[in-house]
């Protein structure tokens, strides 16, 4: 699977760099270490060659003299020499060996008990006459240099890794912080707050410029929305006036139509015009709510008392419609809100239950405290709505096929939803098994 989160990408990227860094440092160390070793070998080989050349390979006396000169002339504290004859007798040198090292190059440690040398590199050369020349280099300094080199490499790698990880975390946090700010704004806009914008810090960085561009886009959308709404409002007003005049003419005719054969037709016409006027009223109410200005008029509202009042109002209507209504409101529950809109919301919810259920359905209106929320619940035991269609009935003009014959314009639940949002709440439709449960949750302290 491809990594998608910023954190995963950063982690993989930083890990790859750190692995590469360790490999590079390891190779670097290896090369230096090997070069040092070769330098030691070259030095003891050169020494051996000089001594052997002094006796042309055969004259052990000349070689011993050369060794004595060497040891006397330069103070080679880290170089030890030994010349033995074919029988193993010591001829010259400053080295004490319990046993001769094997011919060629070899390394030894303290277990070899070489006098005065803990760690060293030895070169043993067989001479044609049967003797052996041993040249030893004391490696303590080389080893400590080597150890220091590896420590420097380790330390360097660690510091670089820390800088990389810290930088990656910093970049991730910075990007994530900006993205969260943007996300919050997008969420707010989706929730209906069209005036929400990403906060800018004025640094003119790429983040800030991007946020500013995003804000300009939101401004533009807002502007277009306002234009569309104005156009829609103008159209609605232009249509509403002649429609209202038409309605009063029809109503006037209706008043004088008693006994006329066209009387039912005229009544039907008037009802249809009424429905169209209601649609306009609902649409304009919806725009008014979505505009958000009614928040400025918020005051303390006891929703329990309001539910009682709405229950009292609709009790007779529900009873006549044979859908008995019960109200369970209990103790006062106070929120900040617009009492007229909250009243309309409760009326819409109960009316919705009355209008879209068969006779005999029981309807319950409840006010429940849920922690920091108040839930206004309207529940019926009617046929309900399939869960897949819950979103349809809340959307503008969303009506179910089965409800097309019922009166109304499909704005009832849209209004409820808009009023809930205005109060920082939400409308949820649930399966009451059987029946539909509409729940509006509103924060007690918004």
């Amino acid at each position, binding site marked *: 699977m491809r990594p998608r989160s910023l954190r995963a990408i950063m982690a993989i990227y930083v890990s790859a760099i750190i692995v590469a860094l360790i490999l590079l440092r390891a190779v670097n160390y290896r090369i230096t270490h090997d070069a040092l070793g070769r330098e030691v070998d070259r030095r003891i080989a050169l020494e051996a060659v000089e001594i052997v050349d002094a006796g042309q390979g055969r004259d052990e006396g000349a070689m011993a003299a050369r060794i004595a000169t060497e040891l006397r002339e330069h103070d080679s504290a880290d170089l030890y020499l030994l010349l033995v004859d074919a029988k193993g007798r010591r001829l010259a040198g400053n080295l004490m060996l319990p046993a001769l090292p094997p011919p060629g190059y070899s390394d030894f440690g303290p277990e070899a008990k070489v006098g005065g040398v803990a760690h060293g590199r030895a070169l043993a050369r067989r001479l044609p006459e049967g003797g052996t020349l041993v040249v030893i280099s004391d490696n303590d300094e080389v080893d400590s240099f080597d150890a220091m080199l590896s420590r420097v490499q380790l330390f360097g790698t660690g510091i670089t890794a820390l800088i990389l990880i810290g930088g990656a975390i910093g970049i991730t946090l910075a990007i994530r912080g900006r993205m969260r700010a943007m996300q919050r704004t997008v969420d707010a806009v989706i929730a209906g707050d069209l005036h929400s914008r990403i906060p800018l810090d004025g640094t003119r960085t790429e983040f800030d410029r991007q946020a500013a561009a995003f804000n300009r886009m939101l401004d533009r959308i807002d502007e277009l929305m306002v234009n569309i709404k104005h156009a829609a409002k103008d159209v609605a007003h232009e249509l509403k006036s002649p429609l209202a005049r038409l309605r009063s003419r029809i109503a006037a005719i209706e008043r004088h139509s008693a006994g006329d054969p066209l009387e039912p037709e005229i009544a039907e016409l008037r009802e249809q015009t009424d429905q169209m006027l209601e649609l306009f009223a609902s649409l304009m109410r919806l725009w008014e709510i979505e505009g958000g200005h009614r928040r*400025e008029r918020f005051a303390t509202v006891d929703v329990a008392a309001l539910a009682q009042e709405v229950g009292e109002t609709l009790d007779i*209507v529900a009873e006549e419609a044979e859908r008995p209504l019960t109200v369970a409101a209990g103790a006062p529950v106070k929120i900040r809100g617009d009492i*007229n809109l909250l009243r309309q919301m409760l009326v819409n919810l109960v009316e919705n239950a009355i209008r879209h259920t068969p006779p005999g359905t029981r309807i319950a209106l409840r006010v429940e405290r849920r922690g920091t929320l108040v839930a206004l619940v309207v529940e019926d035991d009617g046929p309900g709505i399939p869960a897949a269609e819950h979103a349809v009935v809340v959307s503008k003009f969303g009506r179910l096929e089965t409800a097309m014959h019922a009166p109304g314009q499909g704005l009832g639940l849209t209004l409820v939803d808009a009023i809930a949002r205005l109060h920082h709440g939400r409308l949820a439709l649930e399966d009451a098994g059987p029946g539909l449960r509409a729940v509006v949750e509103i924060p007690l302290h918004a």
Partner: protein
Amino acid sequence: MQLLVVEDDAMAAKQLVADLAELGHGSMVAQDGRAALSLATDSKFDAVLLDVMLPYVDGVGVAKLLRERGIDVPIIMLTALGDLDQRLDGLDAGADDYLVKPAAPAEIDARLRAIVRRAGRANESGILRSGDIEVNEVKHRATRGGRALVLQNLEFRILCELVRNANSVVTRQMLYQTIWNFDFEPATNVVDAHIRRIRLQINQPDERDPIKTIRGVGYMFTDKE
């Protein structure tokens, strides 16, 4: 009634004057706030229909200035839907009622009669009487021909409103506003259901029904056939 129509849209004003003439009201038109103020100060009108959006002085300002000058002519504000602020400001400024434009002439007529009646009856005791029905608003009691009527709170308040406006139309919209504080029209027939209930309570089988249904508009309480 002699009315002052304050409306800056000449077309709308002309239509309104024609509608009001059909209902038997004479009217004068003022096209801006200043003209409205001088006309209302100089002449006597039975009521003022006041648009909110006006040149020079807006409707709220006109209502306020008229009240400050001690002119207590009934004022009905005409507002566009959605302007809740203006509606409330208008009532605060001294207007008696408001209507959302475009208002049906029958609705305007009913409001005018209700306001003029209210102004005339303001200083009476809490007892309202029409025909053989008497309601005591203060004691929350109603009788028909001396027989006590059993009414729920809402039913009693609706009956009071009908009796107060006896012989003129009380529209459904008026009842929604005064009885229920609804600033919207519900989808179900709330008013009709309550009126049916009131009729059951006040009418014995052999009695005349004093509540007349005015189709498409509302109800009218009548004291005679």
